[in-house]
């Protein structure tokens, strides 16, 4: 049996990688990839807590939440990438440091 803390440590590492990617990368698609990493890390935590919680055979809430997050991630990726492509058509760049039309 793999201890719960191992899953949590793996998820913490993935989340921190995703956080760094979302904050530090210049490219909008790379930022989106960081967000996907963070969503995956959260999912690992949900399923790990479901598995190690009370009555995993009766109470499937952890898995249900994980399925919802997978669905939300799909919606987020579709809208995010459509936005990126629309911005690229308009400005010929997806460098987030150059996208400052809304800055005063």
């Amino acid at each position, binding site marked *: *049996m*793999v*201890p*719960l*803390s*191992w899953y*949590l*440590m*793996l998820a*913490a*590492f*993935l*989340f*921190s*990688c995703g*956080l*760094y*990617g979302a*904050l*530090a*990368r*210049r490219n909008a*698609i*790379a930022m*989106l*990839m960081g967000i*996907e*990493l963070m969503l*995956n890390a959260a*999912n690992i935590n949900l*399923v790990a807590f479901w*598995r*190690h*919680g*009370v009555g*995993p*055979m009766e109470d*499937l809430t952890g*898995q*249900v939440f*994980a*399925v919802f997050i*997978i*669905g*939300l*991630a*799909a*919606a*987020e*990726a*579709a*809208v995010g*990438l*459509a936005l*990126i*492509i*629309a911005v*690229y*058509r308009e400005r010929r760049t997806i460098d987030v*440091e150059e996208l400052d039309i809304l800055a005063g």
Partner: protein
Amino acid sequence: MQLPLGIEVPIPTFEQFVFLQVALLTAVAGLAVVTSRNLFHSALALTLTFFGVAGVYVFLEAEFLAISQILVYIGAIAMLIAFAIMLTRSMMYGRTSLLNHQWGKSSLFAFLFFIGLLAFARATPWPEAGEPVIADEALISALGKEFVTTYVIAFEVLGLLLLLALVGAVMLARDR
């Protein structure tokens, strides 16, 4: 197992040993996603990370999620990202830096966040092992029943959200 400096390391069981390899693969791929210089290599590493996470789900006896992970993340999201990279010609060869001006602060913050989470995960007395789970068809059909009974409203709203997101994505990305 006794290491030279007197550090006691418990010998992992076979399951733990295999888990460590899957976790190492996932972690290295996840790190490659955010450090790779070529954006397309990042996308490939992201695909590998998704595979590793699916493997972790198998260890957690959540087989339905493992399959969903491969279908949705690798089949749809990784594909979408690869196409977006190719459509936007955003490899940025010859750029001076792939990182923005706040990368130093970001890396420090992410590192401290990781240390904090690690300390939390190690310090908290978690239960030793979960209750036994028989991962078979009964578990998956119980999961399906949950979706159409307890969580039916959230499930329908999620379906509506996905539909709206896809229509919105087509509207946003279409050529005017």
